[in-house]
């Protein structure tokens, strides 16, 4: 019997398992940075962690605040600029990158820009940042989703997945052959994309989640793999690593924010400064 885990931990661990030894990895902010640290500590010691702000081969000692946080590590191997971080991606040197999802359609196209009308949005999301560049030219792209939504039609296409499905991405001539999103990891399961149609299907389901739970979020008839398996539960070593490295990440965003804020208030109170 292994330790109990949170769904945030399961997600972080599932993401970490996608990183192979010797991969050149572009990490995004948030959950992937913890996954990167976990992979490097436990199963991919030669992975090269990089960020688009120009940090190459860094090893975070604490969870970075953002994608330019060199203060989370004690030095790193190469300080290049953002332009070069992207041109090396274009040239094919990046094996894997991770992107968060705002809206996603069945072919893995993403919207992280706006909900509603782009010009007068109901909700203005952050935007592309480096997402569209990375998913276009990284060899593999793993998508992560917490709080995003599945939709039939995106309000805005920020980052190209398999476009209209089938061989549309490969035949467009705009992207390296065989590139595109490889997996989508949510708190319910792991989705992959059909080899031929490029439509996403449920490949693995997390323990104690039902197929019905997974279908609930999805407005189209979700395909389920014939060989649907249960996600391998986290090992104690994986859970221990996350809790030591990033206890707030283990809690998930809202609980961590709640506790963090209470802690700030407490400190202010102790100083008699509220």
């Amino acid at each position: 019997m292994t330790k109990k885990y949170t769904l945030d931990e399961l997600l972080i661990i599932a993401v970490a398992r996608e990183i192979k030894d010797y991969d050149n990895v572009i990490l995004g902010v948030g959950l992937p940075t913890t996954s990167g640290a976990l992979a490097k500590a436990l199963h991919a010691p030669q992975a090269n962690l990089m960020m688009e702000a120009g940090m190459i081969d860094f090893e975070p000692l604490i969870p970075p605040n953002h994608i330019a946080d060199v203060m989370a590590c004690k030095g790193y191997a190469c300080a290049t600029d953002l332009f070069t971080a992207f041109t090396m991606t274009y040239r094919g040197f990046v094996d894997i990158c991770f992107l968060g999802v705002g809206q996603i359609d069945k072919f893995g196209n993403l919207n992280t820009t706006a909900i509603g009308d782009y010009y007068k949005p109901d909700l203005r999301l952050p935007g592309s940042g480096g997402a569209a560049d990375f998913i276009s030219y990284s060899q593999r792209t793993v998508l992560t989703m917490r709080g995003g939504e599945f939709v039939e039609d995106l309000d805005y296409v920020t980052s190209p997945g398999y476009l209209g499905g089938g061989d549309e991405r490969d035949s467009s001539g705009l992207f390296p052959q065989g590139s595109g999103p490889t997996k989508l990891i949510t708190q319910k399961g792991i989705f992959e994309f059909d080899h031929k149609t490029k439509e996403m299907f449920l490949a693995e389901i997390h323990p104690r989640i039902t197929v019905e739970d997974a279908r609930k979020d999805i407005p189209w008839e979700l395909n389920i793999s014939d060989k649907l398996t249960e996600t391998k539960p986290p090992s104690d070593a994986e859970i221990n690593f996350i809790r030591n490295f990033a206890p707030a990440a283990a809690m998930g965003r809202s609980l961590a924010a709640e506790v963090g804020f209470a802690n700030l208030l407490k400190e202010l109170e102790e100083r008699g400064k509220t």
Partner: protein
Amino acid sequence: MTKPIEKVMSAPEAIERFVKDGDHLIIGNYTVGTCMELVFEIIRQGKQGFTLYSQSGILDVELLVAAGAVEKLVTTYVMRSGGRSGGSAVERALKEGSLQIEDYTNYNYNARLMAGMHGFSFMQVFEGIMATDLFKKRSFMGEDKYRVIKCPYTGKDVVTVPAATPDVCIVHVQRADKFGNAQYWGAIGSVPAAALASKRIILTCEEIVDTGIIRSSPHHTIIPAFRADAVIEVPWGAHPTEVVGHYNQDKLMWGLFIMAAARQESLQEWMDEWVFNCRDRQAYIDHYVERFGSGWLQKLVAKPFYSAPANYGSAFLSTWDEHGKDRGTGLTMEEIENLLEERGLLHD
């Protein structure tokens, strides 16, 4: 007009002299260590009508937009307070129609600066962008947001972005000399490109240092003196964001800002307290210490982790060796002058 050699001045003077209403204004910093005091001073002086460039907007963009200073925004990323249920000044301004936005990817935006920095009229970007709405949906830049040309070598379609050469860059760095040689290290991002693409550069630094320090570490210099217009020493000039080697991000102040930014009214109160009621950075820091105690700031001060010095040494730094002979010809000055005379090479 020739620039003065020494460029040290105050933030109010620099903004007054070098930032004009309606300018194309660029925030040089990227995600980290942003030029907060310069942003505050622009707001205090009520400058407006900007086309603002920001590689990745954090509270710098939020404040300038909330102050009504920005008409157009060119960016790749904007912050949002409090997730889906929260909000941002950028979102509010878009909804109201007081702000137009042009979205690029990180690479595309940076490519515009690289073209501007190097004097090219455009830069090639990655063709995959054609499959996205960044390419298809255009705002104030219209046709000129992206243009497609034929590569003369491969015959393939090449997507381009136009050069950006903003009127003025505001940027914060770790150190500079009084001449404007500015040194920055850490996450490089697009900081040098943003500064060097611009026509004028206003820089704040944590410390003004002796030129000897700059000259012993030229690999850290991102802006050479001849490109700088104003140098201002502003300790804690990027607070509440962090500056590598000086101080960490202030989560308390970040938290207060994030909570305030979700609504215009609370953001206005935040600005009244921290921008308008503090005449300069010293007053801001004094007010901070008064409200929260000095202990908070002390906890943020970075413990040193020095880079190994790069050895710029050489075997000799004089043409003349220890015997007074020129290293190339093996002759003394007297012997050289005699030789010149002898060969009839000297003229009255």
